[in-house]
């Protein structure tokens, strides 16, 4: 918001966006003033169904945080608990450093963009946006000023007089966003905000939402089941499954170093296989796998985890090269089973021994001889491109 806030919130908004270092370890001291949402061991049951099975989570001020997971994993329940629209069975929640569970939804400094937008059908766009300010009994001049400026920000000023039923899906989404943002919340919660939009519009809005968040410096907590969306927009992502957080990290960490096969398969496509540890020298492992003998280089942080002989390994399809590679790479001989092109990239299924590997390659127009099914091909994988799974 460009205008100074005149609300009597008990928290102070950061004026400018201060990006915290995403590589900083996740476990920060609870007393750290930069944490805006702290969840401790939240559990929630609906009858027999365990929606949250002990979730602890810290969200830093000013970050774009995503909760990612399949439907029914508890991500929306967690969001509703933060918003005050649901209560946990056990656990503790702090917003802005203060206990928040005893606060009803209308006293929490958070606002939500609902999945189906939940715009008030009997109010016009500008009345919808002014709703929150009216409820706080702000002077009407302030309401008009802030409503107008937020409508400018979200580019919906021309729609001010319309009613929700006269808006398209994308416009509704902007109105819902403006209606939440105008209150200058400490945390903005977004519940699958693009779930109802088509793919192209989604991409546009993702970018816009990300830029908006950086400009305003408001903490965004975003729930989605779309991994592309989460990776594209977030500073950090928590992957949830069956009521638990299975991995929390930056998009790069999650993509390059998934800890479990669930994360590896949920985020992007990957080839998974098992192997036996043969020898280990510092960060370099030598393993026997169905693909043959592979050398694997692990980053320093995960080196303690591999005191086992049986390993689960994975490699992303685009990290397997079909064009010679570098010296020192693992080299595998395979036979192309099928090949197809999606436009920007070529997708090949290559059989190495008894294992089928998925390999993708960007179409750079470099390849002189096209590959066909039945051709034999040499695959190269750099030792650093493997990841080791914990399960």
């Amino acid at each position: 918001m460009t205008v100074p806030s005149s609300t009597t919130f008990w928290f102070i908004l950061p004026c400018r966006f201060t990006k915290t270092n995403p590589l900083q370890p996740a476990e920060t001291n609870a007393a750290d003033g930069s944490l805006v949402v702290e969840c401790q061991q939240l559990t929630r049951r609906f009858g027999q169904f365990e929606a949250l099975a002990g979730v602890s989570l810290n969200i830093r001020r000013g970050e774009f945080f995503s909760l990612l997971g399949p439907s029914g994993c508890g991500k929306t329940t967690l969001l509703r608990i933060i918003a005050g629209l649901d209560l946990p069975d056990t656990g503790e929640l702090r917003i802005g450093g203060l206990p928040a569970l005893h606060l009803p939804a209308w006293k929490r400094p958070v606002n939500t963009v609902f999945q189906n937008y939940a715009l008030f059908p009997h109010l016009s766009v500008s009345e919808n946006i002014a709703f929150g300010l009216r409820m706080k009994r702000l002077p009407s001049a302030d309401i008009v000023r802030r409503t107008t400026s937020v409508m400018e920000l979200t580019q919906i000023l021309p729609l001010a007089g319309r009613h929700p039923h006269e808006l398209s899906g994308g416009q509704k989404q902007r109105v819902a966003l403006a209606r939440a943002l105008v209150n200058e919340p400490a945390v903005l919660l977004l519940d699958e905000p693009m779930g109802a939009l088509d793919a192209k519009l989604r991409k546009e809005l993702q970018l816009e939402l990300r830029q908006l968040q950086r400009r305003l410096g408001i903490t965004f907590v975003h729930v989605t089941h779309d991994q592309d969306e989460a990776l594209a927009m977030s500073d950090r992502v928590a992957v949830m499954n069956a009521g638990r957080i299975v991995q929390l990290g930056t998009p790069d960490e999650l993509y390059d170093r998934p800890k479990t096969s669930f994360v590896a398969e949920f985020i992007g496509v990957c080839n998974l296989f098992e192997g036996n540890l043969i020898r280990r020298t510092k960060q370099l492992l030598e393993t026997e796998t169905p693909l043959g003998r592979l050398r694997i280089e692990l980053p320093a942080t995960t080196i303690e985890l591999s005191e086992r002989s049986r390993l689960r390994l994975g490699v992303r399809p685009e990290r397997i090269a079909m064009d010679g590679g570098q010296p020192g790479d693992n080299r595998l001989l395979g036979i192309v089973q099928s090949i197809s092109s999606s436009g920007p990239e070529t997708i090949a299924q290559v059989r190495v021994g008894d294992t089928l590997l998925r390999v993708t390659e960007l179409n750079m127009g470099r390849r002189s001889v096209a590959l066909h099914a039945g051709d034999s091909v040499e695959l190269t994988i750099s030792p650093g491109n493997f990841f080791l799974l914990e399960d």
Partner: protein
Amino acid sequence: MTSAPTESTKVKNRRPRQAVHFGEPLPLGAHLCRASWLCGPSVTWMMLFLVGPLLFVVAMSFAQRGDDGEIVWRFTTENYARLFGQGALGFDPVQPLILARSLGVGLLTAILCLLAGLPVAFFIAGLPHRWKGAALTLVVIPFWTNLLVRTYGWQLILAPDGWIARGLRTANWLAADGELYPGWPAVLIALVCDYLPFMILPLYTSVEKLDPALEEAAADLGASPLRAFWSVVLPQIRPGLIAGCVLVFLPASGQFVIPDLLGGAKLALLGNAVQQQFGASRDWPYGSAIAVVALLVMGAGLWLHTRVTRGRREVALP
């Protein structure tokens, strides 16, 4: 800002058991409190003025009539026996005939309404979307107008010297001294006219959901239109059909005004019998027994109706 873990568990334990309800955190007991001041007055009202009186009618139906029409509170099932034909001199068909006639009239009305309602339901379902609402409104307007007025409207139309009666006489479809009113034809016509909306609305809801592709497929497979209707369309609209029949049958068999004004003295139905007992005959216990039987018929129909419409949105009244 910092808190020791013990302190936070204390906070947790102090929190009363509550659930968030439409955005509002409510202790679990608060539901009953809210419900009681919101629904309490109406629930009390309906208990006092609907359930209570109906139970009183049931009780009254087991009482006896004194010599001067007063009520004698002595238990007897005589009223019901009388309704089912047990007279002082053995079997007396007059009373059971009223019951049978009412059920028959209800059934006949339902069938006639079905025949008249089907084309209308299909017609409205086939209209362009923006005309559907208007057409449905046209169907329900007569229902919400005064029943008495509509009934005596039929009196005027079917009058012995009216155009229709005279036309029928010239065409020799009606005997020279025959009359449409008072009599069966007039009662049935008015009943059908009265309860047709009850048939059209549920039928329309079913027809609207019909999958036209199925019917085309049946035609493709060589089914004649009639056969396609019978074996493909009819099973699909059955819920609406049954709901409609029940909704017509129930009020039609208990009608009082239409037989009273159009049927003449001989065509008494349950409703007229009740009125007779509470009016001229002043036999309230017997009247109550008839009312109870009417209630039971209604209960059975209602049960059938809920069985058929279970899981679907209730057929909304106009």
